[in-house]
Structures are given as C-alpha cells and as structure tokens.
C-alpha cells in the first residue's frame, strides 16, 4: 500500500502545479532580467552559425 508521500508524488495535479510554478517564475524572472530584449537582439542579427558560416 503506497504511503501518502508516494500518492502525492504520483499525483499528476501536484506535478503540474509544481512545473507551472517553476516555469512561470522563470518567465517572470526572465522578463525582469530583460531576457526578451536579449532574444530580440539575438534574433534580429544574421546568425552566422545558423547559416553555416561562423
């Protein structure tokens, strides 16, 4: 008979909640660190590695 901690661990609800909490906090942290600006700048420049030159 699994104990309560195993049931909690296996319970999809808590897994989903945990991953959402971590992921959303990552997104918020990234926005605070101005990651989006970095992504825009990086994506706007021709990536020489991507096209096989540098």
């Amino acid at each position, binding site marked *: 008979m699994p104990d309560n901690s195993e049931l909690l661990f296996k319970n*999809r609800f808590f897994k989903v909640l945990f991953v959402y909490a971590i992921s959303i906090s990552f997104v918020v942290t990234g926005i605070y*660190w101005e990651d989006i600006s970095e992504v*825009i700048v*990086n994506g*706007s420049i021709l990536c020489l*590695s991507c096209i096989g030159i540098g």
Partner: protein
Amino acid sequence: MNVSIWRRIVQVLGLILPNSYFQVFIKDGSLYQGNLKGVVLPILNCYSTPSAYASCPMGSMQHFFVIQAFPAYVLGILGVVGITIGRLTCGWICPFGFIQDLLHKIPTPKIKLHKFFSYIKYAVLVFMVFLLPVLFEETFFCKFCPAGGLTGGIPQVLMNPPLREILGWLYIQKMIVTGLIVVFSILISRFFCRTFCPLGALLGLFNSSSIFHLQLNKIKCVNCKKCSKVCPVGIDPLVNTNSPECIRCLECVNVCKFDALKFKQGVKGKVLKQEVQI
C-alpha cells in the same frame, strides 16, 4: 473533419505564419527586427530563415549560455508549453516536422528505426545545447542544425551574394548534415525528431505529466494494433501511452474504431504505469 486533415491544415499554417515576413524578399533582404522576435515559439524554426518573425528556442537558449547567462525566459516558456500539451507542437506546428512528414511521403522503401537511436537526442540536448555553448562560448547545435541549414543557410546564401565569398568548411559540413537528414527522413518516418532534435527531447520529458495527454481504455481496446502500425514514431500506445517519443499527432486516436484511445485533459488522479479509463 478527420483529425489528419485538421493536422495538415495546422501544419501548413505552422509553416507559413511564423515565416510570413515576406517583405524581406522585396526590400534589402534584412531580417525582421521587431518585437515579435522576442517571442520564442516551441518549434524548430531558425531565426535566420529570411522571413522568420519569431525566435528559435534552441538558438536563443544557446545564446544565453554563450553569454554566460541563465535562459530563464526561454526555459519558462518551454516549461509552460510542455506541461500543458507535451510534445504536441512537434506533431502539429513544427515546420521542420512537417517537412519531414512530406519527405516521408516520397515513395521509396522504408526503414524501421531501432529504439536505441532515440536516446541520441538527449545527448544532443545536454552537450550541444547546454554544456558546449557554456564551455566554449559557441552555439554548437546551431552549427549543425538541419532546420537552419535548409530554411536559413540555403536561402540566405542565395539572396546575399557577398555571403558566398566567405563560405568555408563549416557551410559544406552543414549542407552535408542537412542533406543526410533529408535523405534519412525520406526513408525513416520523422527521423530527425526521433534521433537528434533537442527541442523534442526537452518537450518529450513532459509527456507523461502534461495536462493534455493520451488516455487508453483497456476495456474497449481489442488489441488490433492499428494504433501502433499508424504511429509515425514507432510507439506502441498499448505499452507506453504517453511515451516521451510521442509527438501527439493523434493518428492513433484517429484510427481507433473502438474509441479506446482519447486525447483529453486531466489533472487529478494517480499516474499509473498504464493509464486506464473506466
């Protein structure tokens, strides 16, 4: 309408919409530089594709590691997408996945892929996307990415004559890799997705826990094996219904005449070894 037809429509939209900055072909060939480049779509669509609007998550992640920063925003987006729908974007939206589906339709003898090769993509994720960019400050996976080679490398070199003068061994290497992936995609269904795609490797980790997932009703199932025959990534849904390999194309759901397989949302309840819906 049949799920397969819907999926093809969505795949066509997934190919066109993220790559609809058509002004690049009329103007001076410069990439889109607006705010939409800050959107990280959970698909393998190189941001050096001339008409690309958004950014590739793998390229963006490597860039953060190269500048010795933590890619919180990119990982967060992939986490939210993954825990919601798992690897559904691979089966329904990814342009390179769609290209592989089209290539596989070319009538040639087909080859089955051994399960061993599916582990390579985890090594690609760990080494070429995470570790090597941190250690050597180079976007290693981008140098080999066939999606970038096909949709970025070839058109950019065709559109920009000055680039042709600085082509070197890396370009030849990249075109060889791209060519091999194209050839193998003709012979093996979703070859790149199953063997090398680091984005698929990452999103697949969420398949077993995602809110939207496949559910198997073992009471209704008659074990006809039609689901495993139609699966493009070689899974047997009866053995591992939410395998990390599953791209959630839903062809198995579409082919099941007994309503034993469903794609549903569900959060409560235990995660059992084989999910049963009673």
